[in-house]
């Protein structure tokens, strides 16, 4: 055979292989599309940006360091806390009920009893105060993180169902504006990183799309489980801005906006993060 045919053959094979790879790569993974008004065109879970060891750790309930908290939360659901006459179960029934799962996925939501949009943590504290006769807990108390972790774990697999209309509309707008607001000495907004730079490296970590679905999550660098609002504070510190306390109105608004922004993706709490 003449050498020229050999070359032609090699070229053709390369083209065919390249084409096949191109097609395969495109079909390997289809990310769910976002809502039309969402600045993201497609949605990627936080887990997509993790190194494989952390992803595996989160996927295995026996290996996931956040799991003891889920179990503690489950125990607290069924057994009355010292000083209380009853437990959550006595009003709400078994935690695994569909109604409980659906309610969890709908927070932050408007609560007519306090005339405001509240987070799941605030709801737990209201229950403690009004129905169990217990003191409300600060956001970093292991008991409230445990209960949140348990409830969010129950809602695993279902997407966030936050409402952004009616009494929630104003808070949603506020969250949406906050996401675009440049803050801190670095003057960086959430959107600049999580809308435009996801997938790129910031130090050792890969910037994610910033979905709230895995929280409360085990933060490896801290060696403990952190809440979503603590994650907000960490982000604030990265922009060299002042963080806000747990359940600050701005953080609840941001949580509501992020819930809407992540729609179509499932809740994966409790997660594992670097």
């Amino acid at each position, binding site marked *: 055979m*003449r050498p*020229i*045919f050999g*070359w*032609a053959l090699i*070229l053709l094979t390369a*083209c065919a292989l390249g084409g096949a790879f191109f097609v395969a790569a495109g079909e390997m993974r289809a990310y769910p599309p976002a809502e039309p008004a969402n600045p993201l065109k497609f949605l990627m879970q936080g887990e997509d940006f993790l190194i494989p060891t952390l992803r595996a750790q989160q996927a295995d309930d026996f290996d996931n360091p956040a799991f003891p908290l889920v179990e503690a939360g489950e125990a607290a659901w069924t057994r009355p806390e010292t000083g209380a006459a009853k437990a959550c179960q006595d009003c709400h029934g078994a935690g695994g009920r569909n109604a409980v799962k659906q309610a969890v996925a709908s927070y932050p939501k408007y609560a007519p009893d306090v005339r405001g949009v509240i987070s799941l943590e605030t709801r737990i504290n209201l229950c403690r105060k009004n129905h169990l006769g217990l003191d409300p807990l600060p956001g970093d108390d292991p008991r409230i993180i445990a209960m949140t972790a348990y409830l969010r774990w129950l809602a695993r697999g279902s997407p966030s169902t936050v409402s952004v209309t009616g009494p929630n509309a104003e808070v949603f707008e506020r969250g949406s504006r906050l996401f675009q607001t440049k803050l801190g*000495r*670095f*003057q*960086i907004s959430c959107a*600049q*990183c999580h809308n*435009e*730079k996801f997938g*790129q*490296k*910031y*130090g*050792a970590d890969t*910037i994610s799309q910033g979905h709230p679905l895995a929280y409360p999550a085990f933060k490896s660098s801290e060696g403990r489980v952190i809440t979503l609002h603590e994650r907000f504070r960490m982000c604030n510190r990265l922009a*060299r801005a002042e963080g806000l306390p747990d359940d600050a109105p701005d953080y609840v608004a941001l949580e509501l906006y992020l819930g809407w922004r992540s729609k179509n993706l499932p809740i994966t709490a409790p997660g594992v993060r670097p």
Partner: protein
Amino acid sequence: MARLHTCASLLIWTCLGAAVLSFASSLAWSAECKRKTAGFYLLETAAGASHRLSLSLQGITASLTGALGDPERGRELLINRQKGDCLSCHKLGMLATIADQGGVGPALDGIAQRYSEAQLRQILVEPKAYFPDTIMPTYYKVEEGGEAPILTAAELEDLVAYLKTLK
């Protein structure tokens, strides 16, 4: 046999031509992207911003302190996570021993070949003059009664002095 030969060479030349064409168009595209992200873009979009434009193209020639910076101190500032913290976003192959280098911005290797000293100073003081949409912070913004800038004038000069060595 001769016809086959002609067909094959035709095919190869077509392939080569297509490759050259696509390579040229990708070059043109990347040049267009560079033009858009660099300050030259301001020429067409912001007609009224002539002062800003000339500043952005010329850079800041004069040292902020009037003196030369110390490249050794500049290197420390570049690494220090509480100071410049440059490596959270930029790679610098020369300092490969420093772990966890980021990839948000372009690599800093050879940066002194791409920008003049005045332009490096401008980028550190206010990168948005060249790159309006950049996420890179403004390292030296002095406001009446405002917060202190991220780096002092002396620190910024040290950093410029270090970046100048990255040829």
